[in-house]
């Protein structure tokens, strides 16, 4: 329907404008944060052995002597052109650094989310359909405990048990040496798929199982609890009784009516989780020796690498905004009521 198509586009335009505003605010915030906190950037960049004159030279060269407003305008101008500055620890443009580490983190995050969603949905469907019985009770106990396990600790325990002790999975890294090839996307998992190399894919899966599990358990537990709660509340609602009074089987009620209606809050949560997951990747990337965004950020913070930190935070912020947009579009596609509210709102 062309009018609905236009409504989608108008919605997208409006949401993109909001996203741009948010990103702009974010950039400002991060810039101020870096400037306001103590510590002399010029001295750090010039290095601990630099003479005061050398520090001054660096300051002038990088424009750090200009008033804050001027620095900000210059900075914003560069960011608009896709230039996030140069990292002082890798001596490369931050954008290039990020391009190297991002695929690894995205691979981890996406794999973790797929794993978490599958686990949570399967468990929630079983638990909600057998509400109150032993399967339900025990899955709830497991979920409560899983939701309280510290991710970094779980990573250490899994690594110790499954890699060091029982040698089921590799200890660290992203793929075995013999499979390393020129990166296409930078993600071993995706590259192996693109090349159609099955054993390389299995190998990459082998490497990602432990980090994805360690990272995913907490999120899967949250997703399970949310989906189970909404499934149960939907199953108690009056329209389910109405569907049943038509003679529908329980499987049909659960899969055709309850699940689609219950997915809304879960999708919203999964969107929020993706952002948090990128942050939490810091915790497992170090342990499992993955060269990702988290490891990069941790290093940048330790080195007080201003532009690297700024760039990373902005990229993560942009990622979160993108996810929010995707979630909104999904909700729009899934729920006609959201569609009505949004599209009517758009005309205002």
């Amino acid at each position, binding site marked *: 329907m062309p009018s609905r198509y236009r409504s989608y586009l108008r919605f997208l335009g409006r949401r993109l404008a909001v996203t741009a505003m948010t990103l702009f605010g974010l950039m400002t915030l991060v810039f101020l944060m870096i400037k306001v906190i103590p510590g002399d950037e010029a001295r750090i960049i010039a290095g601990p052995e630099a003479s005061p004159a050398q520090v001054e030279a660096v300051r002038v060269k990088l424009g750090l002597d200009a008033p804050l407003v001027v620095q900000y305008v210059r900075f914003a101008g560069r960011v608009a052109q896709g230039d996030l500055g140069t990292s002082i620890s890798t001596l490369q443009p931050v954008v290039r650094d990020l391009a190297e580490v991002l695929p690894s983190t995205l691979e981890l995050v996406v794999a973790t989310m797929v794993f978490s969603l599958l686990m949570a949905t399967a468990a929630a469907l079983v638990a909600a359909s057998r509400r109150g019985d032993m399967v339900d009770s025990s899955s709830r106990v497991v979920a409560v405990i899983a939701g309280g396990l510290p991710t970094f600790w779980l990573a250490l325990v899994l690594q110790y048990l499954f890699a060091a002790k029982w040698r089921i999975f590799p200890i660290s890294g992203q793929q075995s040496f013999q499979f390393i090839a020129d990166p296409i996307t930078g993600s071993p998992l995706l590259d192996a798929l693109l090349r159609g190399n099955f054993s390389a894919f299995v190998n990459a899966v082998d490497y990602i199982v432990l980090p994805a599990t360690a990272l995913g358990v907490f999120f899967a537990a949250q997703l399970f609890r949310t989906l189970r709660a909404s499934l149960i509340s939907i199953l108690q609602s*009056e329209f389910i*009784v109405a*569907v049943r009074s038509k003679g529908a089987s329980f499987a049909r009620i659960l899969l055709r009516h309850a699940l689609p209606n219950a997915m809304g809050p879960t999708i919203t949560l999964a969107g929020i989780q993706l952002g948090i997951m990128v942050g939490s990747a810091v915790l497992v990337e170090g342990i499992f020796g993955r060269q990702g965004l988290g490891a990069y950020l941790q290093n940048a913070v330790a080195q007080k690498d201003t532009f690297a930190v700024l760039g990373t935070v902005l990229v993560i912020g942009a990622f979160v905004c993108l996810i929010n947009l995707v979630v909104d579009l999904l909700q729009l596609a899934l729920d006609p009521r959201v569609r009505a509210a949004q599209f009517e709102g758009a005309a205002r």
Partner: protein
Amino acid sequence: MNAAPDLAAAEAVEAAAPELLRVEGLSVSLPGGVALVDGVSLTIHRGERVALVGESGSGKSVTAQAVLRLNDRLRIDGRVMLDGRDILSLSEREMAGVRGGRIGLAFQDAMVCLDPIMTVGDQIEESLRIRGVGRAEARRRAIAILTELGVHDAADRLGSYVHEFSGGMRQRVVLAMALVAQPDLLIADEPTTALDVRVQRQVLDLLDQFAANHALSVLLITHDMGIVASFADRVVVMYSGRIVEDASVFDLFERPLHPYTQGLLAAIPRVDRSQDELAAVPGSPVPPALRPSGCAFHPRCAKATEVCRTEVPPLETMGGRRVACHHPATDGVHAV
């Protein structure tokens, strides 16, 4: 009296038509043991329209859902005979065949009893698709029934969602959903309560015509005595989970025997004449968990005596009607 011929006609229907549904000693209780419905017995004949009347907590809706075994958390005792077969003992699979197929159920509030994210067409057709009807045939019948229920552009409306419909249209969809698989009995739970009075009249008229066309039996659950008077052949009055009176609509309005029925009828303000004072029933309806001993109505009853406080009055047949009261109004009615 001008009611006499109608009365005779109503009784003739009852006598001639075969029995469709017979509920015997139906009790429905919460897991904790509180009986929401306590020993309800009633019969519906083919083509008959029975109104089940009561206030909040009377158990009228619980009775309806128990007939179709729709709430698994409740304990159901007694028998529900459909064409002589006890459907409470059916397997879940056989029961699914009865639901929608033999007995359709229409709810009060269409906004909450339709799936908000499925098109109304899919929801009406679902009743048929479950029974193996093909996609095209299901669509054809969905359009046909909506048209019969007064939706003129039915084919165009099937792709819409519930929230895009007005109250009256929604209620037609609910009826279509319950009736599309051609059940013998429609249980309609307050089908017009959420509607404005003009729309309510339209929907009732449509239902009236549809029932006449298809010789449909109807169990109408309502609290509105006006609707009862204009639609039902027979009225069953419930109070706190029990039947207190069961009579033809003319008998009931003309000579209510139970003090509760009398109070209920006297408490209704009339739009067609001016009155001075309404005779209010003191107190409030009691929820089943707080049901007093003996006759549940005794704390609100002016005629209550000691026996009312201690003994539950049995539902006794007198003069072709039934009443559960130790001191029923007997003027003009003689026990058979």
